[in-house]
């Protein structure tokens, strides 16, 4: 084995790492130790990990190396160290959902996505930090600790999959899984300069993923390169009989056709998305990316998404409503925190939930309960579900004239920690670009497209595609990545 330094090892993409293991140039153990070393050195500052499962990881690495020795490779990810958002159930490993109400909870089973990664031979390093119950855009709502942006430790990495994005950007893991309900993969990916994919609703099983909003949640990869994202997506996608909302459509090979380039693609640019409200640096970077696509032979088509401006209102009724119901199970009876000792049943419920839930979670439960309550259902929940249909229709119509839609991920770059916690509405309004794809149940991704001139912070370009057409999105993202170069990794200060 060549003596590659720890940071060189950590810098490998997931695919490169897997290939080196297969070629026996590097061992899974070395990669795993390198990752664990970086975590030990840097994560104190970053706060990306809530749990590091070093022993398990090293044991898995040993097995991967044994397989590599006898030529029994499970997949391209065999032996590659990855990590997952702490929303994924991992058997026997604490799963907190970033909440005190699940502190110390050990699930009796794995999430399907975790099972599939492990079946592919991946090494799991640990569980990644997140906004509590995936509710938030900055990871500041984590009940345990904030996560910091590796590009600037005074700023958020985004959320709710902030730990996933930070870990990948800071090379603490070669890839990660996150979840995206209103932008929670794409926005942190954009803030941290990594690739993040939210697949079509139903593409990846939600079994074993702590539910936030059932009709919006999706599992997806965060990775350093588009190729890695394609690889990770392929490893977890596909029908799961344990999830009746998972699609039976066959999964294609996301790596095939990845290099086909952008020539001939019709890229829709929604006029509503490039108006006011964008920070100049973000607007400039997005514009530059669109121009790059033109140079690569794609055509830009102006489209309109007239119901875009109603998206936040619809999302912030539907998601909290479903969440208020999904979070009713946290009652202190069967698992997790129990408070209110000495009191009766009602005290137990109320104290448990008061102590266990943070303010953002409580806020959304309140909002959701209100929207579903007697007398308000029609005006709020039902109406929001109808507007959802309109948002989807806008995109269906746009796709008659283009193959994918492009625009910003967020109005600006990563904001400072503490800047928005007191202003929930402002925090919500920043989701305006990402929630479209969640409401429409369509695939979308964020690919780094440049840097903000003022701060040097990463800017992400969002691509939204037709149902189950992740392949076109990945191909287009790869084309841009080839053109602008793989986004650099930050030096963690």
């Amino acid at each position, binding site marked *: 084995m060549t003596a590659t330094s720890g940071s060189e090892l950590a810098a490998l993409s997931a695919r490169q790492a897997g290939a080196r293991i297969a070629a026996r140039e590097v061992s899974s153990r070395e990669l795993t130790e390198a990752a664990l070393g970086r975590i030990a050195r840097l994560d104190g500052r970053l706060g990306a990990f809530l749990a590091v499962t070093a022993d398990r990881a090293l044991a898995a690495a040993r097995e991967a190396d044994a397989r590599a020795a006898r030529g029994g490779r499970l997949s391209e990810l065999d032996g590659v160290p990855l990590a997952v958002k702490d929303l994924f*159930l991992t058997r026997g490993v604490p799963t907190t959902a970033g909440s005190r109400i699940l502190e110390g909870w050990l699930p009796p089973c794995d999430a399907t996505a975790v099972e599939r990664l492990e079946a592919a031979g991946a090494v799991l390093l640990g569980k990644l930090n997140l906004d509590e119950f995936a509710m938030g855009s900055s990871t500041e709502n984590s009940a345990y600790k904030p996560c910091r942006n590796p590009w600037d430790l005074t700023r958020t990495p985004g959320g709710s999959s902030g730990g996933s994005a930070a870990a990948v950007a800071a090379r603490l893991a070669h890839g990660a899984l996150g979840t995206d309900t209103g932008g929670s993969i794409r926005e942190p990916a954009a803030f941290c300069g990594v690739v993040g994919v939210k697949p079509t609703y139903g593409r990846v099983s939600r079994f074993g993923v702590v539910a936030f909003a059932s009709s919006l949640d999706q599992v997806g990869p965060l990775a350093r390169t588009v190729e890695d994202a394609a690889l990770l997506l392929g490893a977890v996608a596909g029908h799961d009989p344990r999830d*009746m*909302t998972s699609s039976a459509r066959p999964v294609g090979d996301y790596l095939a056709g990845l290099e086909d380039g952008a020539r001939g693609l019709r890229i829709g640019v929604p006029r509503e998305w490039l108006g006011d409200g964008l920070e100049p640096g973000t607007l400039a970077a997005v514009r530059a990316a669109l121009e790059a696509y033109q140079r690569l032979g794609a055509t830009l088509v102006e489209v309109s998404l007239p119901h875009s401006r109603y998206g936040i209102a619809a999302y912030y009724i539907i998601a909290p409503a479903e969440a*208020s*119901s999904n*979070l009713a*199970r946290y009652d202190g009876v069967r698992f997790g925190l129990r408070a209110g000792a000495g009191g009766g049943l009602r005290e137990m*419920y109320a104290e448990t939930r008061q102590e266990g839930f943070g303010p953002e979670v409580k806020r959304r439960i309140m909002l959701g309960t209100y929207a*579903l309550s*007697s007398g308000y259902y029609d005006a709020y929940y039902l109406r929001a579900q109808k507007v959802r249909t309109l948002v989807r229709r806008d995109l269906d119509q746009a796709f008659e004239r283009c193959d994918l839609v492009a625009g910003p991920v967020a109005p600006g770059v990563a904001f400072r920690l503490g800047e928005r916690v007191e202003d929930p509405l402002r925090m919500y309004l920043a989701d305006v670009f990402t929630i479209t794809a969640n409401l429409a149940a369509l695939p979308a991704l964020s690919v780094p497209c440049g840097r903000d001139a003022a701060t040097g912070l990463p800017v992400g370009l969002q691509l939204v595609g037709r149902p189950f057409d992740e392949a076109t999105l990945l191909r287009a993202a790869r084309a841009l990545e080839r053109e602008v170069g793989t986004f650099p990794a930050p030096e963690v200060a």
Partner: protein
Amino acid sequence: MALSGFQVVIGCEVHAQLLTRSKIFCGCSTAFGGEPNAHTCPVCLGLPGSLPVLNQRVVEMAVTVGLALGCAVRERSVFARKNYFYPDLPKGYQISQYELPICEGGSVPFAVDGQERVARLTRIHMEEDAGKNVHGVSADGASGVDLNRAGVPLLEIVSEPDLRSADEAVEYVRALRAVLMALGVSDGNMQEGSLRCDANVSVMRQGAERYGTRCEIKNMNSFRFLKAAIEYEARRQVEIVEGGGKVEQETRLFDPDRGETRSMRSKEEAHDYRYFPEPDLPPVVVPAALRERLRAALPELPRARARRYQDALGLSAYDAGVLVADPQVAAWFDRALEAYGAGREAAKKVANWVNGEVARLAHEAGAGPAAWKLTPERLAAVLRMVDRGTLGGPGAKQVVEEVFRTGAEPAAVVEARGLTQVSDEGAVEAVVDQVLLASPVEVERHRSGKKDLTGFFVGRVMRELRGKGNPAVVNALLKKKLGGGS
């Protein structure tokens, strides 16, 4: 039920646990009992990240019931969440059906006081059962939660408020139960709770146009309690209205010990269930092909069977009705008839035994036909012995009872207990002569008109024969010997 100028109005909500092997949304066993929480998994425990997966058989059973009761089966129905907090409800919501249930309309025919009636159904829908709260699991009076039952499939069958007396309600539930059992979707066990009935009861003045405020009565786990509860509640409500008061809409529990209903939750706010369509489950699709396949597979239903018993076998409506109330009993009857013989006389005899002695023994033992040691063939054997004169009426009863208890062969029981009837004319005649000789005074009195002394002679003869004299033979010989009269 006299209510002095008032009419009681009743609608029933029946919850039937379906006889599937696994729960509605997961593969856990539906078997009754078992160590607390031994039949559970992440789904029915409501653990984070769990998702429901619908059991195909539940849909098939729901459609089958709907077809049998003449409902409109929706091609597309939707599950919904009913949200409330209770320890036996692990997710904090029950997955049920709300706006778009799988069946609508339909009706249940039943008979009360010999009159044929029909109660219309509002709807039938699928839902999951909750777990069980158990009291006093520890010294400090705490309660325990057992989720074995959580997720067992239920069919909720809601009737229109078409019932007008407690008796009607009872007969309605009886008839519905018979249908569910005939279809093999429920075991109809009210005591164990696999068939539950809630009644919505209100009263209105005779001739009034609007229904009164109704109360929901729960916890009536037998027909007797159902009747008592409704009668009590009707009287209670009439008293309130007559006294100038207003009936409060509430849920009340029947207390079988006191024969009263009492309010269930004090000052509890009316539940706001915040129903919304279940996002984790796609709409339930019942294509026409499936519907027709299930329709073609419908077995003979109780009312049709009862009609057949009346028409082809000449049974009375009453006898037929009793037989079909439990489809397993009716099936047992059919086999007994097959083993014994055809014809209306045979049917009448077998029906009398099944509805009489056998029913009594079964009721005492608390067992259904599947558990009876008295097989149809054995009953047939006993009946043939009676026909041949080998057994008398009382003897037959004894044999049937013992066979029911022990499963012994009838012939063996007759042998062992020496129950063989004495039918031989010669033997009986000898005893008759003996008795008449020994009672000259009574013979003289009989001859001079005291005909009711015949019983005295029969008694003496039977005593000599240890009760095993064939009554027909004894009577015939006495008549011959005593001459004339009776």
